[in-house]
């Protein structure tokens, strides 16, 4: 279980996140939904340890991880734009986390992870030769391959065109559910958010305004902005 409590993040003396609290239960998928520039990506980066929290605490299974460096947190983060390693092929990209963990039989696990996203046999392909949709799936496989405790997806479908998005929303959801992962998905798209997640957290100007299921939010919006944004 992930618990974020009263998190403040300040970058270049500008407050980006203010007093953000969120709990994600085991096997739950929460979508953080908000307009661009509302601090959603920074929220994920703070949980991953890529940016430091000014105040507040982040706990995993009750233990504070605020002082654990990024590479020891054991979380997965799929970046907006994927951040695939340009000098490695598909298999090396997907196997990177396993290699860092010192695992055996990396090749077998890479092939398995590729099969989750329907890219069997893509291991030796070069990253640049892939289409946008294929790159998205490689990034997803790379994030899932080390079986992280928590999976974070930053605008997982943001860079793709509309038709592809509709298909990949369903696929991504399936992959996440089959793995029974705990996940946070960040997006600015309401439909994508509700299709991918069990619960929504609405973020605006660095603060979480309201959390709940889509129906609850539609029925009882906290304020006018929420009503308008999810309508």
């Amino acid at each position: 279980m992930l618990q974020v409590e009263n998190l403040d993040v300040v970058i270049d003396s500008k407050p980006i996140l203010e007093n953000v609290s969120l709990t994600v239960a085991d096997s739950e998928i929460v979508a953080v939904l908000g307009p661009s520039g509302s601090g959603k990506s920074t929220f994920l980066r703070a949980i991953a340890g890529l940016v430091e929290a000014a105040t507040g605490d982040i706990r995993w299974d009750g233990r504070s991880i605020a002082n654990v460096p990024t590479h020891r947190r054991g979380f997965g983060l799929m970046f907006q734009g994927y951040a695939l390693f340009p000098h490695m092929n598909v298999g090396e990209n997907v196997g990177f986390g396993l290699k860092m963990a010192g695992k055996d039989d990396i090749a077998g696990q890479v092939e398995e992870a590729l099969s989750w996203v329907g890219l069997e046999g893509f291991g030796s392909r070069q990253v640049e030769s892939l289409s946008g949709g294929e790159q998205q799936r490689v990034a997803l496989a790379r994030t899932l391959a080390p079986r992280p405790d928590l999976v974070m997806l930053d605008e997982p479908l943001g860079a793709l065109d509309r038709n592809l998005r509709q298909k990949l929303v369903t696929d991504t959801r399936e992959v996440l559910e089959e793995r029974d992962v705990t996940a946070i998905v960040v997006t600015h798209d309401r439909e994508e958010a509700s299709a991918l997640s069990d619960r929504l957290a609405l973020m605006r100007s660095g603060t979480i305004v309201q959390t709940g299921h889509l129906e609850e939010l539609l029925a009882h919006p906290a304020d006018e902005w929420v009503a308008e944004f999810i309508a």
Partner: protein
Amino acid sequence: MKRIRWGWVAVAAPPVIFIGYFFVYPLIRILVLGLSELSVGASGVEARLIRVGWFTLWQATVSTVLTFLAAGPLTWAVSSFEFKGRRLAMALATVPFVLPTVVVGTAFVALGWQESIGAILAAHVFFNVAVVVRTVSTLWSRIDPRIQEAARVLGASEWDVFWRITLRLLRPAIAAAASIVFLFTFTSFGVILILGGFRYATLEVEIYRQAVTLFDLPLAAALAIVQLVGVSGALYWYSRYQERTAVSWTLERGTNLRRPKGRARTGVLFATLGTLIALAIPLSTLVSRSVTGTYYQALFRDDPVVGVPAHSVLNSLVFAVAATLLATIIGVLAATVITGRSGELSRWFDLTLMLPLGTSAVTIGFGFIVALDWPVDLRATRWLVPAAHALVAIPFVVRSTVPTLRSVPAETRDAARVLGASPFRVWREIDLPIVSRAGMVGAAFAFVISLGEFGATSFVARPASATIPTMIFRLLSRPGQTSFGMAMALSVVLAGLTAAVVMAIDRARFGELGSF
């Protein structure tokens, strides 16, 4: 909380020490020496400065204008049309540019054109046509054709479109190419030393004569200051111009090339073949004249004055390996600092490291003999040669490495960290593999530069450690057909070596990331 990042200090120290001792410190010594000479106002100094300065300026200006006129037809053809052999034509037109200046000089002597202003201008045009063709066509072929079509619809003739639209849009590329050509010809040394005889001297040649032949170091230093002012002025003008004309318009991502039809077809044919044939004449003359005697065999015979000329090939290769190692290590470390996330330091580094590019090779070599007697006298060691070559090559290594390092988004490193890589493993798995590939290209550039370097080498190479270019120059300076034939043969050897390395770079660039 400010911590000293010792990792950065370790990375930044070798470039700082190297550039500081071999470049910044000699430059200061030149300034001190030259300014005292200028303030004394020794008799005749002023008149000489004006005469040499004026010749340097006008020959550079005329060379630049002539280069544009000569490059115009081919630039038009490769920017507007797709035709068979287009890429090959571009590649062939680039050959003169990668040739060492002594080879170009020797080729024009082989044509029988020495000691004339015509030979100097022709050699400059020959050398620089590729700069104009490549720089301008890159932009020209990407102009959105709808802009030109819009002008046609509004009633502009084809000539109006070219004059009022295309040429205006091309101004940034034309300015870039013009300033590069101007800088190259303003600081031209090898070509003028070989083709100018005693009658024509640019600042570079005059610095060399005063320092090496007449041993008037203060006067040479004064000339070097004038040279520095001229070069910095040109660079400053260019950067100001770029700022002012930094207009952006929608460039097409791909190129807009048509197939030539009718009259255009004939035009393309004449433009391409005419340019290539003209460019081929000096080189083919050099090669064919070099095989008309036993000149190649003579390179292996011991000569009472210059020794065995073929030994210079060995010297050059040893120096090139040393210079390449030095330039690559220093350049890659410097590129790491420049692209690192440490604001001030990065910007300062970027600027300082580009300075050797703006300074001429002659000034670098001259600085060595003026300054490197402290703290110990290094001037007699042969290893000054690779140090000078490395200094000339470092900006090129940095320039070929920085874009690659910058093209790695910060998120790539973040992604590795999230996947469990410690800071050291991030460097080991991400930065090192990427930088070593770019470094390979930079290293090859350094190797080519070292092989052909003449300006700095002419100051620091000892007779016993002559490189190929200095040996060619010594052979050219001697009277007699055999000496000249040997110079031609050695030039062909140097051109061949250079071509081999350049071809290797080209293949590496197409094969690898392809992002240069």
